[in-house]
């Protein structure tokens, strides 16, 4: 990836160019040199606000720079105009994030602890296994009956009470 040295830490040029183009009239261009200068100014802006927010955070006896520290820093340093627009975006993002976490928590709060879910799963597996075994046994039984029938075929025909069972077994196997 690109430079990760603290001294060379910067912002993506393409993004900054895009922002510049957004505000300028179509026929006005911005040279790369000028764009780079704007970029440097922006990095310096981050340093400034960050440092101020950090001070405010410290005075607040907190260790983590929170949104309110950033907002206060903007105000203190003369960027109060940005605050309303910045908080609008932040509130919108918070709403989106809380909607996402709510929908994922829907599944977590069905009321069953994991242990119970595992037990239920094991029960289901056991049921499935026994159902499979029963059908396997039923198949074996069917084969035996068929063999018997074949053997009986060599003998005089008799009413075979097993014939209805034979068709029933067929249905079961399907």
């Amino acid at each position, binding site marked *: 990836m690109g430079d*990760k040295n*603290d001294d060379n*830490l*910067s*912002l*993506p040029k393409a*993004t*900054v160019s895009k*922002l*510049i183009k*957004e*505000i*300028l*009239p179509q*026929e*006005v*261009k*911005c*040279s790369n*040199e*000028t764009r780079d*200068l*704007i970029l*440097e*100014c*922006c*990095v*310096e*802006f*981050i*340093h*400034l*606000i*960050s*440092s101020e*927010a*950090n001070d405010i955070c410290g005075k607040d006896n907190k*260790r*983590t*720079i*929170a*949104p309110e*520290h*950033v*907002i206060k820093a*903007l105000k203190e*340093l*003369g*960027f109060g*105009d*940005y605050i309303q*627009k*910045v*908080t609008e*975006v*932040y509130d919108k*993002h*918070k709403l989106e994030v809380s909607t996402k976490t709510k929908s994922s928590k829907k599944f977590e709060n069905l009321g069953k602890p994991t242990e119970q879910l595992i037990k239920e799963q094991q029960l289901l597996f056991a049921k499935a296994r026994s159902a499979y075994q029963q059908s396997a046994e039923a198949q074996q039984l069917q084969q035996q009956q068929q063999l018997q029938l074949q053997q009986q075929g060599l003998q005089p025909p008799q009413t075979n009470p097993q014939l209805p069972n034979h068709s029933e077994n067929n249905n079961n196997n399907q």
Partner: protein
Amino acid sequence: LPLARIKKIMKSDPSVRMISWEAPLLFAKACEFFILELTARSWIHTDLSKRRTLQRSDIIHGVSRVEAFDFLIDVLPRDEIKP
């Protein structure tokens, strides 16, 4: 603007310890507005000079119009100021 990059820039200050996840988001938006304002103010000078390309001297003039931008004095090249 990429939040991870903003966070790294913030952390390049050794006195900065922990940053809430929301902070880089606020910074990203604030930076956007900063770039837009700086560009717009610079363009005023470009337009007055009847040019169609934003130059570094325009940025310097744009900065000089706003008191809040005084912190940029050290970043700007001083020898490029054109009347």
